[in-house]
């Protein structure tokens, strides 16, 4: 593949040498290319405007989190007139608030590890072998993302009560596998199909056993795929509220559920709500920072 690419590139470099184009035509091509260059100089505005559109509501949330409640509801200002960190202090000092973050992170990490761990061999099977019912199984997996979570909440509650798992982190981690495992399998299968099968065969001829081949050779090859799959599992588990709230009461309560109870006697505590919202952005931002290069490398090496 690489060789072919280099050959093509080399051929292209040599083309003008082989067939000297007449100067007029050459300048015409150059002019056309330059014109396209200038025309596209302003295209960065598209992503820039989009990012501004994304940031405005987030800015408003950050802005609110630094205001007092009376300033939020009483006046309208583009930035805090009397900046305060009281809202953040409430969260960092009150266990019922900050334990929500810890709970969320625990079950999200458990779910990500579990999902990727079971999805890896499954995706390998889908990408390398044909077996009885493989196509149906692959589509069936996807159907698990289509079950409306709203009414599945109650059966989930009954199921996990029967196993005595209510209000544990593992219950939420297991329940979230329902929609994360299919996604992880789907993504990893794409990456694995991009790895030539000859690599597997060569490794077996060299005397690698399957587990050793998988760990030592195959997994490093699809490291970016694992990164992307883990990112998506993290993301969907982190943002899900309905199931997580149903399966927990206090000990494993996620932060998003804690946020639904900020109505106090004096009305909605907007400031603390905004501060809690701002803090939910941080773990996600960190994770995307870690996988940014993997995502840029390409979603599916072969089958895109």
């Amino acid at each position, binding site marked *: 593949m690489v060789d072919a690419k280099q050959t093509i590139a080399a051929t292209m470099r040599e083309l003008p040498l082989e067939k000297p184009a007449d100067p007029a035509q050459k300048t015409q091509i150059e002019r056309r290319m330059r014109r396209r260059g200038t025309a596209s100089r302003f295209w960065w505005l598209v992503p820039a405007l989009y990012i501004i559109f994304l940031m405005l509501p987030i800015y408003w949330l950050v802005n609110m989190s630094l205001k007092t409640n009376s300033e939020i509801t009483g006046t309208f200002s583009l930035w805090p007139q009397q900046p305060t960190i009281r809202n953040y202090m409430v969260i960092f000092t009150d266990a019922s608030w900050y334990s929500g973050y810890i709970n969320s992170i625990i079950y999200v990490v458990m779910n990500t590890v579990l999902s990727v761990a079971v999805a890896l061999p499954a995706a390998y099977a889908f990408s390398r072998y044909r077996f009885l019912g493989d196509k149906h199984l692959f589509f069936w997996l996807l159907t698990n993302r289509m*079950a409306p979570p709203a009414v599945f909440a109650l059966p989930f509650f009954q199921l996990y009560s029967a196993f005595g798992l209510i209000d544990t982190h593992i219950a939420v981690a297991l329940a979230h596998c329902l929609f994360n495992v299919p996604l992880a399998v789907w993504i990893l299968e794409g990456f694995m199909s991009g790895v030539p099968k000859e690599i597997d065969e060569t490794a077996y001829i060299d005397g690698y056993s399957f587990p050793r081949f998988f760990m030592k050779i195959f997994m490093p090859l699809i490291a970016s795929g694992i990164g992307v799959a883990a990112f998506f599992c993290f993301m969907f588990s982190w943002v899900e509220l309905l199931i997580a709230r149903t399966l927990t009461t206090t000990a494993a309560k996620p932060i998003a559920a804690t946020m639904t109870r900020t109505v106090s006697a004096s009305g909605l505590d907007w400031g603390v709500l905004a501060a809690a919202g701002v803090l939910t952005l941080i773990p996600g931002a960190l994770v995307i920072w870690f996988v940014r290069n993997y995502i840029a490398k390409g979603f599916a090496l072969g089958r895109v």
Partner: protein
Amino acid sequence: MNKTWNNKAWFMVLPMLLLVLFSAAIPLMTVVNYSVQDTFGNNVFFWAGTEWYEQILNSRRFWDAMGRNLAFSFIILAIEIPLGILIALNMPRRGWGVPLCLVLMALPLLIPWNVVGTIWQVFGRVDIGLLGRVLEGIGIDYNYVRDPLDAWITVILMDVWHWTSLVVLLCYAGLVSIPDAYYQAARIDGASRFAIFRYIQLPKLRRVLTIAILLRFMDSFMIYTEPFVVTGGGPGNSTTFLSIDLVKMAVGQFDLGPAAAMSIIYFLIVLLLSWIFYTVMTSHEGER
């Protein structure tokens, strides 16, 4: 890639299958169970047959919610997919702009869904929100609590804000993986920017677009938390989508039978539509 036939591959699939089945099969059976029975409390159930299904399929309320949901999914797909492709095409390919764009664009995806609702609920409010204030300032009568059209615009804008980045990330990853040789060849042929897009980039994006459209369709068809937090299904019933209606029925009125029957019908519709998308989008793969 030509795959070998090997039924032992089932052993590799098995752990994954058991894990998913645990959370999928048993709750699904419970829902099916509810949908064919009636109860007067105390865990005493009676066989009701297809009664609930008939009731749901004949109810105006269900079809109205279905219509709203289809309209919503169609509108957001029509906005998010072209917009996502456009943004991905114009994103920088190298330099400091790449990680900056990726991190900032991925941010909305990583916000818990009820927080997304809260953000937009505040952002659109006429008294304390930036959007509401600005629109009022330039003389547009905007109030998503009172006016159904404004509520729809708010919910759609929120979904575009929330999910376009997913399409952008998928398309960007697809675009980056196109070898440079394709572009060089196109340049030599003097292809226009549109021709490059139409004949090189778009075909190469087919697979990621399949994933993007499927994910966006399924999730928008099951949307619950965000519109519930922003509008609560109102004003009136104007933003009551299927899942909001479903929760009203299951939790609010505790009509488990009809709610279960409705979720089965709902599930089958999502399944059918997704299958059609999937078949259409992947039908060309065999030809290449």
